[in-house]
C-alpha cells in the first residue's frame, strides 16, 4: 500500500502542488489528472524517488521510502515519457536486457511472448528499434509490463502515441495487474476503461 502524507513539490522556482495526501490500495489505480504543467510528471517522479519533494512523506507499507531505498525500488516499475530503450538494439535485445536488469525472467520465449502481446511479433522484433515508429517504440517500452512481477507501477502518459489496438492491450494488462493485487499510478489526459470501483482520481492544482 502506497501512501502520501501532505506531499508538496516544486520545479525550479514554481510551486507545483502542495498538501497532497492520497492512499493507493492493492487492486486500485490512481489516475492523476491536471492541466499541462500542473506537475503530473514531477508527482510521479517524486513517488519513484527520482525527485525530492519539498515537504511531506511517502510511505510504502508504512515505511518511509527514503529509508527503504533499494527495498522500495525493487517493488516499483516506472515508465516515464522517455522510453528507456536503445535505438541501436532490436526490441528483443532491449526487452531481454531490461528483464535481466529487473531480475525478471529473460528467457527467449517469455520475451517473445511479451512482444507478441503488444503486437510486435515477427519480423518487427528483429529490426533495430531505430526504424520503428513512435507508437511501436512506445509498445516496446510498455512490453516490460508483461514481464514484470513488481506490484507498484508508475506510468507517465502511457496511452500517448498508442493506437486503439495498443490501448486495448494496455488496458487489459492493467486490469489483470489490478486483479492480481497490483497498484498503478497513472498520469493521463484520457479516461481509462476500467471498472470504476478500482479507479481513484487525483487532480493536481496549485
Amino acid at each position, binding site marked *: 500500500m502506497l501512501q502520501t502524507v501532505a506531499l508538496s513539490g516544486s520545479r525550479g522556482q514554481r510551486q507545483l502542488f502542495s498538501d497532497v495526501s492520497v492512499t493507493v490500495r492493492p487492486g486500485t489505480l490512481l489516475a492523476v489528472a491536471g492541466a499541462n504543467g500542473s506537475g503530473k510528471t514531477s508527482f510521479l517522479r517524486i513517488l*519513484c*524517488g*527520482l*525527485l*525530492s519533494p519539498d515537504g511531506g512523506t511517502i510511505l510504502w507499507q508504512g515505511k518511509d521510502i527514503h529509508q527503504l531505498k*533499494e*527495498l*522500495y*525500488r*525493487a*517493488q*516499483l516499475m*516506472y515508465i*516515464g*515519457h*522517455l*522510453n*528507456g*530503450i*536503445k*535505438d*541501436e*538494439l532490436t526490441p528483443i*535485445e532491449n526487452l531481454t*536486457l*531490461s528483464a*535481466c*536488469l*529487473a*531480475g*525478471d525472467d529473460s528467457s527467449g520465449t517469455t520475451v517473445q511472448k511479451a512482444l507478441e502481446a503488444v503486437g510486435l511479433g515477427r519480423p518487427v522484433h528483429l529490426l533495430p528499434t531505430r526504424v520503428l515508429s513512435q507508437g511501436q517504440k512506445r509498445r516496446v517500452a510498455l512490453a516490460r509490463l508483461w514481464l*514484470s*512481477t*513488481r*506490484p507498484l507501477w508508475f506510468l507517465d502518459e502511457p496511452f500517448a502515441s498508442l493506437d486503439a489496438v495498443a490501448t486495448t492491450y494496455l488496458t487489459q494488462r492493467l486490469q489483470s495487474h489490478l486483479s492480481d493485487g497490483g497498484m498503478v499510478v497513472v498520469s493521463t489526459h484520457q479516461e481509462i476503461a476500467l471498472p470504476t470501483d478500482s479507479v481513484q482520481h487525483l487532480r493536481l492544482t496549485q
Partner: protein
Amino acid sequence: MSQPSLSEALRGVVRRDLLLAMRHRSDVAMSIFFVVIVASLFPLGVGPEAAVLRMIGPGVLWVTALLACLLSLGRLFTADYLDGVLEQTALIPQSLAVLVIGKVFAHWVISGLPVVLLSPLLGLQFGLGGDSLGVLTLSLLLGTPTLSMIGGIGAALTLGLRGSGLLVALLVLPLFVPVLIFGAGAVTSSLAGIGSEANLSLLGACFMLSLAFAPWATAVALRIALE
C-alpha cells in the same frame, strides 16, 4: 517483487554497453586514430631530433591519452540520459555507484584499452626502448581506468548542459593532474635509469583512491542531474 543480484545487474550494464559498442565499432577506431594523429603532431611541431623526442615522449604520450579520455567522456552517460535508459538504471534496486563502475569499465574497454595496447608502438615513434616501453604500457594500464573513473564525475555533473564538452575539460583537468604527473613521471624516471617503482605505486594509489570514491561521487552527481 523481483530484484537482480548485484553481479547480475553489473553484468547487465556492462553487457548492454559492450553490445552497443559492437554496433558502433567505429568508436574504438576513433580513439586509436585520435591518439596516433595527435602523437604525430608533436614531432611535426617540435622537430624530429631523437634526443628531444625521447625527452618529451613520456609527457606527450600521456597528455595524448589524457585528451583521448577527455574527448570520449561525452559518450559515457549522455546517450543514456537522452533516451531514458539512465533513469531506468538509477531505479535498479542496487547501488548506483557499483553500476557506474560497470559503465566506466565498459567505456574504458572501448576507449582506454586500445590506447594502452597501442602505446608500445607510439613509444617506439618517440625513441623509447626496452624497459621504458613496458613502464609506459603499465603506467597507461593503471592510469587510463583512473582517468575514466575521475572523468565520470565531470561527465555526470555536466550531463545535458550546453557547451558541456569544454566545461567537462575545465572541471576534470585539475583532477587529472596528479595521474599525469605520476604516469609520465614513471616513464621519465625509467628513461633516466632511476627506477619507476615509486611513481608506479603512487599511480596505483591514485587508482585505488579513485575506485573507492569516484563512482560514489559520480552516482551522487547522476542523481542530481536526473532530478
